[in-house]
């Protein structure tokens, strides 16, 4: 990783700076030494030191430029930054990022699952609705069928009943006819017998005309009165 190399070389450079005291010797301190005389303040004390070292009075007014960085602060600042960068990069950040990633994954997973469940639910609902509609259609069809078959049955039954009735009527009329015919036949044979009987009687008696007439009349009246037994 190029970044790592860069930071490593930066650290190395810092190390060189530390190792070379000549480079970093400028660390002028505002060292506060314990003063014997309490009424001399810090600024005056520094001025006294400057004058003792052979400086001019103007030097007292001159402060080191505040914009020039001090070696010790550069060194410690650089070290501090690199340590922070190293530990944060290597140890602290991965934990935090892992947790964020986990949560992200979790939320995404949850959302996907929810979406999936929703889709599934909708599918199931549609399926149920379809089944329900099918069932309704089926029921309608069955009812219709039942109605049709009932109608059919009714028609069949009626037809059959009518046919049977007709048959019965037919048979009855045949029976009646038969009975009539038989009765007629009976009557005819009976009349024949009676005629024969009558003829026998007529012959038996050989009666005169008046008697014969009376006989016939009495016979006919007998007939008229009903069967002679």
């Amino acid at each position, binding site marked *: 990783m*190029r*970044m790592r190399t*860069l*930071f490593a070389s*930066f650290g190395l450079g810092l190390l060189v*700076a*530390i190792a070379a*005291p000549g*480079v*970093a*010797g400028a*660390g002028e*301190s*505002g*060292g*506060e030494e314990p003063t014997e005389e309490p009424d001399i*303040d*810090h*600024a005056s004390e520094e001025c006294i030191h400057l004058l003792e070292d052979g400086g001019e009075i103007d030097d007292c007014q001159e*402060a*080191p430029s*505040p*914009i*020039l*960085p*001090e*070696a*010790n*602060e*550069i*060194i*410690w*600042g*650089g070290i*501090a*930054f690199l*340590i*922070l*960068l190293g*530990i*944060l*990069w290597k*140890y*602290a*950040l991965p*934990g*935090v*990022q*892992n*947790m*964020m990633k*986990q*949560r992200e994954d*979790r939320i995404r997973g949850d959302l996907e699952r929810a979406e999936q469940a929703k889709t599934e639910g909708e599918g199931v609902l549609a399926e149920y609705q379809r089944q329900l509609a099918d069932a309704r259609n089926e029921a309608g069809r069955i009812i219709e069928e039942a109605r049709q078959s009932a109608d059919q049955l009714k028609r069949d039954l009626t037809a059959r009943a009518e046919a049977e009735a007709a048959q019965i009527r037919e048979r009855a009329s045949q029976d009646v006819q038969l009975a009539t015919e038989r009765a007629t036949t009976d009557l005819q044979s009976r009349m024949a017998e009676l005629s024969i009987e009558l003829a026998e009687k007529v012959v038996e008696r050989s009666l005169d005309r008046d008697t014969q007439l009376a006989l016939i009349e009495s016979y006919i009246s007998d007939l008229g009165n009903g069967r002679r037994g």
Partner: protein
Amino acid sequence: MTAPLGLEFPPISHLIRWPDLLFEDTPYAINKTTIIYFLAVLITLTFFFVAGRRAQLVPRGVQNMAESSVEFVREGIIMQTIGPDGLRYLPFLLTMFFFIFFINIFEIIPLFQFPGNARMAVPFILAILVWFIYNIVGIAKQGPLGYLKSSTIPPGVPKPMLPLIALIEFVSTFLVRPFSLAVRLFANMLAGHLILVTFAVLSAALWGKNISLVILPFPFLLLIALTGFELLVAFLQAFIFTILTAVYIGLSMHPEH
């Protein structure tokens, strides 16, 4: 220093240069500024380790803040300026943001009350680092000549103007950028610090002096308001430094933009 108005304003060097506490007069000297650097490291690490230690799927408290800040750097800075391929710079930009922010915020933390970035050291090294990174990225992505061309010759410049524009662009990209980056942070923090010191000194001088006590509330209330303002500045400068870094890296990666 004489005090004609009963007001004694310390020389600027006394407001921002701190005596060595350890290893005096060596390049490893430790003073208040360096302690602030260490504390910024410690606070950031504690923040993230506490957030990571009790990490739960449903974030709360510190974890929420840490994740929001990662989210902020990722979505608010990287995705806006570089794009998805800039996500590998997330650790660097996040570190940079928190380092600067926590060093800045000591401006308003009682007992410290000094923004470490009112010293040039950290702005300086970070700007140098950024300079190296965006140049290396540019050379790696576009080749040395392509990078030089894309960073010095803007499209659509008339021929006669080209040498002048190219010179200006060259100076702007390779010299002014790191300088302005560092000075912007440093000067903002220094100025904020001086303003707070001014009003603090003023308030202190007005305290207990007969009639002047009447006007004490004005500088004091302003001091409070400015302290709140410095909180905003601390955040804003950290944000600006980080997003400009991302912009520079983005320009090196995608010169067409």
